[in-house]
């Protein structure tokens, strides 16, 4: 019997709605409990790797997982060009440029704007398209406080309800792109286990549609 199909599962903001979807029929994947990061689902021939969101494309691209779930923000930031057969109907949000609400002109005159972000590539591309110089401050999280702490003038980050943004005195200057979660698949998995992969995709497609 062949090894289980391995799915890279992101433990970030889409983990909860994704787990709810997977718990539905016919897959009925029980919630991942405990601290184990490799979860074998008995009887389903599926293995889940519980990973940081930004690590999902690496696991799939390097063949450690056949499939994975990642936001289009992560896929764009990591320049992931793997096939993405399914889009999930939850976890949709936007990637936006944010500025302190008190700021009259978000772009300082006479110097490059300083922007804090987890998304260095997407932010650089955005300012390139605008034809503006930007000094990018890479951060791993809590980027919303960077303007308060004088670390940056602006921030780029995901905005869902906008609650965190407002709680930190920020307003949305511009939406840069829409973001949604996608299922990605390794091309090697398509070559090696095409039938199994498409079998699982059809099941997931049905679960998303229902």
């Amino acid at each position, binding site marked *: 019997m062949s090894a289980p199909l391995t799915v890279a599962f992101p433990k970030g903001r889409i983990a909860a709605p994704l787990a709810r979807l997977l718990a539905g029929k016919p897959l009925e994947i029980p919630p991942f409990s405990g601290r184990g990061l490799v979860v074998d689902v008995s009887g389903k021939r599926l293995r889940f790797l519980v990973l940081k969101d930004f690590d999902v494309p*690496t696991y*799939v*691209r*390097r*063949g*450690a997982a056949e499939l994975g779930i990642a936001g289009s923000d992560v896929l764009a930031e*990591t*320049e992931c060009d793997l*096939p*993405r*057969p*399914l*889009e999930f109907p939850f976890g949709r949000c936007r990637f936006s440029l944010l500025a302190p609400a008190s700021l009259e002109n978000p772009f300082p005159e006479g110097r490059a704007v300083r922007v804090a972000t987890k998304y260095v590539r997407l932010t650089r591309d955005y300012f390139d398209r605008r034809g503006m110089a930007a000094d990018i401050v890479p951060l791993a999280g809590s980027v919303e406080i960077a303007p308060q702490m004088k670390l940056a003038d602006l921030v780029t980050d995901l905005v869902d309800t906008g609650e965190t943004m407002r709680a930190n005195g920020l307003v949305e200057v511009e939406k840069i792109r829409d973001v949604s979660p996608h299922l990605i*698949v*390794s*091309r*090697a998995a*398509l*070559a*090696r286990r*095409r039938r199994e992969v*498409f079998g699982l*995709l059809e099941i997931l*497609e049905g679960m998303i549609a229902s």
Partner: protein
Amino acid sequence: MKRRRAEGVESRRGPALIHRLPAGAAAYVFEEAARRRRAEDRIVQGLRAAGYREAIVPSADYLAPYLTHLSAREERELYRFVDRHGDTLALRADFTIALARHLAPRLAPGSSLERVFYRGEVLRGGSRDGAGAEFYQIGAELLGDPSAAADVEVVERCLEALEAAGARGAHVVLSAVGALEEMLAPDASGEPARRLADAIRERRLSDTDRIAREVSAGFGQRVRRLLEGDLPPGDPLLDRLGAGRESLVRAAGALSGRRGCRVALDVAEPPPRSYYTGFFFSVYGESGGEPVAGGGRYDDLYGAFGGPRPAVGFALGLEGVVGGSA
């Protein structure tokens, strides 16, 4: 004195750099190095026995002649530098273009078949996780033969080389540049055809179904076969291909009985490099996420360097076969 020298190393370069490797670089010593050389020797022996002669090309070259043959992404992967005369050079990221550049002027016009092989390091940067920045490539080219038989020969040589290196199992994906568009053409054209081809290449199930339904009611089933990408050699969709059909069908037939080899005709597979003009293939091993080998036809490349002739070839990355940086 010893103490001063140690301090000097620390202050100029930092102590960590004594042991640290650049992203994607690898060093092999002792038995690991010997194992690699043995695999390389077996591959080279097989190629020589099949009549392929070795070509050696520079590991760095002027950038300009290469640029028109690279996609934006391939160009970003280059390690480039400025030499002491102010010219921009790039480290070798691929043998095929280099070989065309240096071999084309040396080939007599209309000369007969040439079988050439090469080996050496290539360097490609740009990957976020540093994967595969440096790897050892061995490949072969068959010049002057536009036939499907030449395409089949090259795929077979590639699989022989992989076997010689010790690869167990090969999953071969056969495709051709433009084949997907040719298969869609009788039903869809213009913008819908372009959107449909994009959706199929990205295997986007619902987008593909939706766009296909917009084109015509019964189109969805046919298009789904293209998306799933395992057409049987007798599939009527292949009849929509022109000259490219023969290479695909003959290669699939030739490889189908081969031990440890599984073949798929998948016209949604992207070509390994942007200079391919027709038939191409990717070979995946039993593990790893990237192809261990790939190849195809690049009939325009030699003409760009003044020696027009059809060409088909393959290359494999030794690390993917014998282990090492993936």
